[in-house]
């Protein structure tokens, strides 16, 4: 049923069925009302094989961790099918108005061009590449928050870890902001009570959606042809016999970027310490101001009680908030994000060291007498 409605929506789909029942297209004015797809919550994300290789290539070629781009596809029956993607040019300054407009123009003309060759042209999310596991940063959260409001199903952000791919495990993860976090973000209130109210820890900022990878049969057939070893009369021992020989690079005993990973953990912890120091300072200031305000109110009460005892008119109770400026409680979003980064970095470190341990013990095991 959902597929039938999807086929009759004004978006370009495959060639029309020749001799089946004719579906009447829902007029564009009504399509917002009868939006059946929006009611089905997203349960799974399906990545096309081409998108996988495109993201890996872009992540490898971009400098540092600035590789991001847009995902295109369709949502169908609770599954978000991502069929294409394109990279966005790297803008140096986000606040610069011109560069923001430039990116928007780029995106619009890319979408137009893709539409002409019958590719899907509806934006369903964006992807971000990073190294060594850290993707908790301000820009990601902001972009995802904006996107989640605009897109129909709230877009997903696909995160790709390029260092994990280099180690032999192509890693794609899809995330969405949790409702609790979106709530707090909209109100822009990250003070302590709001955190407690929403029970927010760094692990509850993003929720993960399972990913499924799909290759079209043509792609699968092509890959099979490439990896099939060609039979020749004289097998050589140095040249591999197929275009895509199996790789065993995951069995290498190496340093696995341990030092870089440790450096980044230390950096993040330093930043966290500074942040916590700032927070504590602000808390102390707030407490001090509050103490002064309370002392003033108490003194006023005492004075009034004394004056009533003496029979004079009581002094007016002044509005305390005008006299003492109690500063606003600081936002704890940054420290939460930093904790998330520390956690992510150490998780990567843990994984690399555990596989390294296995390999080392295995290679040593053969040498033990």
């Amino acid at each position: 049923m959902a597929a039938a409605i999807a086929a009759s929506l004004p978006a370009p789909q495959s060639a029309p069925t020749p001799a089946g029942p004719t579906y009447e297209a829902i007029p564009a004015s009504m399509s917002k009302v009868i939006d059946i797809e929006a009611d089905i919550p997203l349960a799974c994300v399906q990545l096309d094989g081409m998108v996988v290789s495109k993201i890996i290539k872009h992540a490898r070629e971009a400098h540092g961790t600035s590789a991001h781009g847009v995902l295109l596809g369709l949502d169908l029956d609770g599954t978000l099918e991502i069929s294409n993607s394109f990279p966005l040019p790297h803008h140096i300054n986000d606040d610069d108005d011109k560069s923001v407009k430039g990116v928007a123009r780029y995106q619009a003309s890319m979408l137009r061009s893709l539409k002409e060759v019958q590719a899907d042209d509806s934006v369903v999310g964006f992807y971000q590449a990073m190294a060594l596991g850290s993707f908790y940063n301000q820009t990601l959260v902001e972009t995802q928050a904006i996107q989640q409001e605009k897109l129909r199903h709230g877009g997903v952000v696909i995160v790709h870890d390029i260092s994990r791919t280099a180690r032999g495990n192509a890693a794609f993860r899809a995330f969405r902001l949790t409702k609790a976090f979106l709530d707090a973000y909209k109100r822009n209130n990250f003070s302590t009570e709001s955190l407690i109210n929403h029970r927010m820890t760094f692990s509850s900022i993003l929720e993960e959606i399972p990913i499924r990878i799909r290759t079209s049969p043509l792609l699968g057939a092509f890959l099979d042809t490439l990896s099939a070893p060609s039979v020749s009369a004289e097998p050589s021992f140095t040249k591999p016999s197929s275009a895509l020989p199996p790789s065993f690079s995951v069995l290498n005993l190496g340093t696995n970027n341990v030092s870089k990973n440790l450096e980044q953990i230390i950096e993040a912890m330093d930043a966290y310490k500074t942040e916590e120091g700032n927070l504590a300072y602000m808390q102390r200031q707030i407490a001090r101001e509050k103490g002064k305000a309370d002392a003033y109110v108490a003194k006023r009460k005492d004075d009034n009680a004394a004056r009533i005892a003496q029979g004079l008119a009581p002094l007016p109770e002044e509005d305390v908030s005008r006299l003492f400026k109690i500063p606003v409680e600081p936002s704890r979003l940054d420290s939460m994000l930093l904790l998330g980064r520390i956690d992510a970095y150490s998780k990567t470190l843990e994984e690399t060291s555990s596989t390294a341990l296995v390999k080392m013990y295995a290679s040593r095991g053969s040498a033990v007498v």
Partner: protein
Amino acid sequence: MPLVPETSALTIQNGSPGFLSTPGRTPTSVTVHPVALFTILDHYLRRTESQDRVIGTLLGTRSDTGEIEVRSAFAVLHSETAEQVAVDMEYHHTMYELHHKVNPKEVIVGWYSTGSNLNTYSALIQNFYSQEIAPHQAIHLALNTGVEEGQQSGVKAYVSSPIGVTPKPENAVFLPIPCELQFKETERSGLDLLSSVSNGSTDAYPATDLDILERSLQSVSDMLDRVLSYVRQVLVGEVKGNAAVGRYLMNTFGASTDELEKGAFNTSLQDTLMVSYLANLVRSQAEVSTRLALATAS
């Protein structure tokens, strides 16, 4: 790693260096990145009913030794009838500008088409593209999807050179040049993932690092079993042993691990243990810290 078996057709040998400095020389070999291949396949799948084959532009880099590296591709609108062929160059320019913004190093190096028949239209289009990127010569990549009967899927690369008495653009012969698949090692695992998915493996995604390690070790163990059974057969006398194979095996298994016991390996092992412990500690610390923030009511 050639993509198609060797042919005895004409190939171009270009030994002297200085390809970039003297444009107009013919390219000598092509390396293709898998992304370009997949994009072409995807475009082929999305073509409309009326199109038999699709064409598009290839982007990549040129090296000084005459090697062309094809890094990505995009589709171009074109229509082909019995009388004429039309290519939307405006679209081509727009898309090229967009792609160039993201990746300034990639330039137009040629064009592709699915289906391996090279007819007059191919020559015309080739001429078009050569004019676009003059003075460099355009390469043509013919990708056969293997969908039709009797045609094997594969990729062939060509350059054109004029032939015949009159220098008309249709009078050109396509000379094949060697074509290879090339990718960086870091992207290798992505391709592995795709081929395992296409083979219908039901392993859960995402696989942890230990799963991948287990699979690798399993395949190495299988290979060792095969080698062992072969050696046993040769010893018994069932199969005649190949001397080259025997020597190769002896070289491979000759490595000894006695040096591992000394010094650096052990300290490295201890370091890894310590790092693992520290990482766990940091994680639990972060978790405790964030819960503490929740616990203190102001």
